[in-house]
């Protein structure tokens, strides 16, 4: 997915001077300066804690949630936050804390399912395109030209409209466009790496293209991809909840943060808690991914 994050620009200067083939083969391209946050030492830890919190909610919502997320209670409609209902209740009397907890399962699922395919396929495609070039590469560059001129949200909405609303179709729609970002990122990286000595050395040593790509190029392009993937997951939650907000994502009675915000919109002046808490969950999850991603980037750079 592309909204919001720049593809880290390949930075040849970050490569080691000594380019003996074997050392270079293990080297990691630390070329993700845009996403680095070296200031907050405790930040990555905080990010990981936040993510673990959400992961726990997603893994066992039934254990953590105080109420049945689907149970109506007509005696407790639109209750403001209280000890019994820390996040209040909605217009069916459902406990919002429980729904926010259950929703974390759906939203984390969105974060993963909407990004794993684009990452894997895009990385693979990017390696091949960057290494071999040729007609496929020309076609790809045209495709990129076309795709980047159309707002991502619009494209995804159009595809979801073709396939029908729902989570699965949303994953398909996001993946159909999202892989291009990864492919573009990896392709650019491979173009740089290809010219470096270690690849030449690999060739000299008589390695096949497959071996050079998978054993040598891939490990070198992987770190920026993984760092980008972290922020992409946060973006996937934003996009997924936006689609949910528009009624095109998760389907009720499934709780999803974006859907919950939409549910609460009509009550915003009288029952603010219906929209505010799910929104905070989105923000918190986004921060979690972002901090953890920054920490990962720093760690990867240090490892060199």
């Amino acid at each position: 997915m592309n909204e919001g994050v720049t593809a880290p620009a390949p930075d040849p200067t970050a490569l080691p001077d000594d380019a003996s083939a074997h050392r270079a083969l293990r080297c990691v391209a630390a070329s993700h300066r845009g996403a680095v946050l070296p200031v907050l030492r405790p930040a990555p830890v905080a990010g990981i804690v936040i993510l673990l919190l959400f992961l726990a909610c997603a893994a066992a919502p039934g254990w953590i949630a105080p109420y049945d997320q689907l149970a109506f209670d007509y005696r407790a409609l639109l209750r403001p936050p209280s000890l019994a209902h820390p996040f209040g209740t909605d217009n069916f009397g459902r406990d919002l804390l429980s729904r926010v907890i259950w929703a974390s399962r759906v939203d984390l699922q969105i974060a993963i399912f909407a990004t794993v395919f684009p990452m894997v396929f895009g990385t693979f495609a990017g390696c091949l395109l960057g290494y071999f070039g040729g007609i496929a590469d020309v076609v790809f560059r045209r495709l990129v030209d076309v795709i980047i001129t159309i707002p991502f949200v619009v494209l995804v909405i159009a595809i979801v409209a073709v396939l029908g609303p729902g989570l699965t179709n949303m994953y398909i729609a996001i993946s159909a466009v999202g892989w291009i970002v990864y492919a573009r990122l990896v392709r650019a990286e491979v173009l740089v790496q290809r010219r470096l000595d270690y690849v030449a050395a690999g060739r000299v040593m008589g390695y096949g293209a497959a071996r050079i790509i998978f054993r040598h190029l891939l490990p070198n392009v992987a770190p920026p991809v993984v760092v980008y993937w972290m922020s992409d997951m946060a973006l996937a939650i934003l996009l997924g909840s936006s689609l949910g907000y528009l009624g095109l994502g998760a389907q009720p009675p499934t709780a999803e943060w974006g859907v919950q915000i939409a549910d609460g919109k009509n009550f915003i002046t009288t029952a603010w808690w219906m929209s505010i808490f799910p929104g905070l969950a989105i923000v918190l999850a986004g921060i979690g991914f972002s901090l953890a991603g920054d920490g990962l980037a720093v760690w990867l750079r240090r490892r060199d």
Partner: protein
Amino acid sequence: MPSHPLTRRGLARLALLSPFAAATGLTPTPAAAATRGGTLTYGLQTDYLFLDPVNTQQNADIWLALNIYDTLIQPTLDGVGIQPALAESWTVSADGKTVTLKIRPGVKFADGSPLELSDIKWSLDRASKKETGGGFQFLLNSIQSVEIAGADTVVLHLAQPDPSILEALATFNAGILPEKLLMAAAGKDLAEKSKNFAEHPIGSGPFMVTSWSRGNEMLLSRNPYYWASGADGKSLPYLDHLHMVTIPDDATRILKLKAGELDGAEFVPFSRVAELKADPKLNMVLYPAAQVLYFNIFCGPTYKDGRKNPASDVRVRQALNYAVDKQALVQVLTYGAGVPMQSYLPMSTPLAYGKGEPYPYNIAKSKQLMEQAGHADGFEITCLADAGSQDQLTRLAATQQMWSQINVRLKIEQLEHAALLARWRAADFQMRTQLWTNDINDPNEMTLRLLYSPMIQCNHTYWRNDKVDALFLQSQQETDKTKRGALYQQIQEIYAAEAPMIFLVEVPYPVALSKKVHDFVQIPLGNNIFVGTYLA
């Protein structure tokens, strides 16, 4: 006609028909203190699309039409009767095949040109001919010819007696347009001319369109030549301008109203009615509406995927009806102001027949019927809903709960409106939620679509009843009101017993107005009537 939202944000359509609904403008003569002048800013959910009443398609356009185009006869403001408009009086011949109308003299279109009898003949000819009459032509289908008989008289010759011809003349598509202006519009044929004319529509109604920014706002100004006078003896309307602003998002529209940026807002979500009622600056009005909300059930023997359809068994449909607690739905959906349906027709429709709920909530009976039908273990049924419509979700979520008691698992499949309509029309659905609003003050329009199988397979349910088909055809020519009423009673009894729908609730139009707005009314057919509205 249907008022499912064109925009998916169209929520809040279910409302409640309160018998005590405070309609502010029911008295046609406003207080003598009516002030003149000013601009009323009104928040719409959907912008207008096409303002030629014959070729118009959507509710918003229909509901505005009477402000721009006069009809020969008008619906009364309480929606139950008809009153003179361009025609001062009329008579129907004994054989029911001739309608003689005496036309008001001296009426002018908003551009100052006189309204001629030839305009009336031309307009009605166009609206009643199959080739030119658009989607509502069937309402005027009985008109065989229109004759100008003397200086102030128009005679309609009907092919057969038509019990609803006067009501049809009071419906928007029978509006009178200036023939010369429309034919002078650019375009190579009538359709193109109509299109270009509708950009700058001119009629003899109280208002005319001054400017229009699509999807955004429309400014209407008073027609200085309008024929009717107000309480002060001067010509109506009181308002100088109507400023219609399109704000599809319900929440935003209401925020704007509360901030005083709008004087009125339509389609208030029911969930907010209580809040707005409590606002001292606002008048929250629930206008009685000829509007019903129900679930459509596919009744064919098998679904599109070949599976057997449990709901093809009438006992199952009855059981599903019994298992819905309509009183509770009235509470959950309309916060107490609606009423359960008694017939498929809104009870304000002439000849509507009902003796209380056809299927009062009764789980025991429901279970018994399910068992008889061999479905004691229940089944799964999927209902289509418009993606993003909170109202539809609310009603389905409540039904989901209720049906779980008879082991029926209701699944909700949200689709975008366009895709939903496509599935429905292809009969590729098990259930869908639907809202019907009458356009004519007669039971025929709704009956034609929901019960008369040759039309659209009874609302695409593939339910059919030969007796109902025959009774309907008979009723269409029966001019004796009592006899027609008897036919309609039979039709409604058969339909209720067969239950091709889940009877839910009748819902009003929820409109919130600033306290300074007086004598605005939305009549049960939905038409917004601004002619007597004033600000004070």
